[in-house]
């Protein structure tokens, strides 16, 4: 399942909604990305996160389908937020549900790598006096 939304999310609720559908799940690996107070040695105030929504759905679906096939996942969940996000807020959640843990770990890392590389989101990071558009290729990809 893919959700692109402005509002935040509750990890327990989002995960239970999926988990409740399947009694054969033994393992869940999940990743949460947060807005940090410091990036590239600059004090961050907030982010403005922009999305090309129609394309983001398509790209994330492709990545999700690839991971599901490759690692026989039972279910997946990707939530990506957009809009104004202040320090400490959640940005993204990726969940990979499988029978055994190795598959969920590998799939979750794979989805995050491709999400960072291809999903059409852009962070405009606001510091106290100026702002800057980030690029993942320059970050710790």
């Amino acid at each position, binding site marked *: 399942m893919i959700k692109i939304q402005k509002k935040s999310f509750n990890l327990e609720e989002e995960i239970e909604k999926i988990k409740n559908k399947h009694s054969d799940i033994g393992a869940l690996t999940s990743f949460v990305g947060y807005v940090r107070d410091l990036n590239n040695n600059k004090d961050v105030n907030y982010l403005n996160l922009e999305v090309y929504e129609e394309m983001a759905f*398509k790209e994330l679906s492709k990545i999700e389908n690839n991971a599901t096939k490759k690692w026989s996942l039972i279910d997946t969940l990707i939530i990506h937020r957009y809009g104004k996000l202040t320090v400490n807020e959640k940005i993204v959640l990726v969940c990979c549900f499988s029978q055994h843990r190795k598959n969920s770990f590998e799939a979750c890392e794979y989805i995050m790598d491709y999400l960072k590389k291809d999903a*059409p989101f852009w962070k405009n990071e606001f510091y106290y006096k100026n702002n800057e*558009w980030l690029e993942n290729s320059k970050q710790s990809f």
Partner: protein
Amino acid sequence: MKIRYFAWIRDITKKDNDVIDINHPKTLEELKDYLENMYPELKKHFLQDVIRFAVNQEYVSKNLNLKPIDEIAIFPPVSGG
């Protein structure tokens, strides 16, 4: 043909999108020429090869043919996640 701009590309174009109704570019290369003419600042970025193009929400790299109903998006390297 609709051309959509994102992130700092939009800071250059000063708008979200352009719609080309007549004499639309037939290829991606023709579209680049068209945009360089309209927004001269884009030229240096096209030359640096950092800009990404999507046609109908799919990444494209080769110089494919464009149709009047296509939605083309132009944007810098992504930074989601």
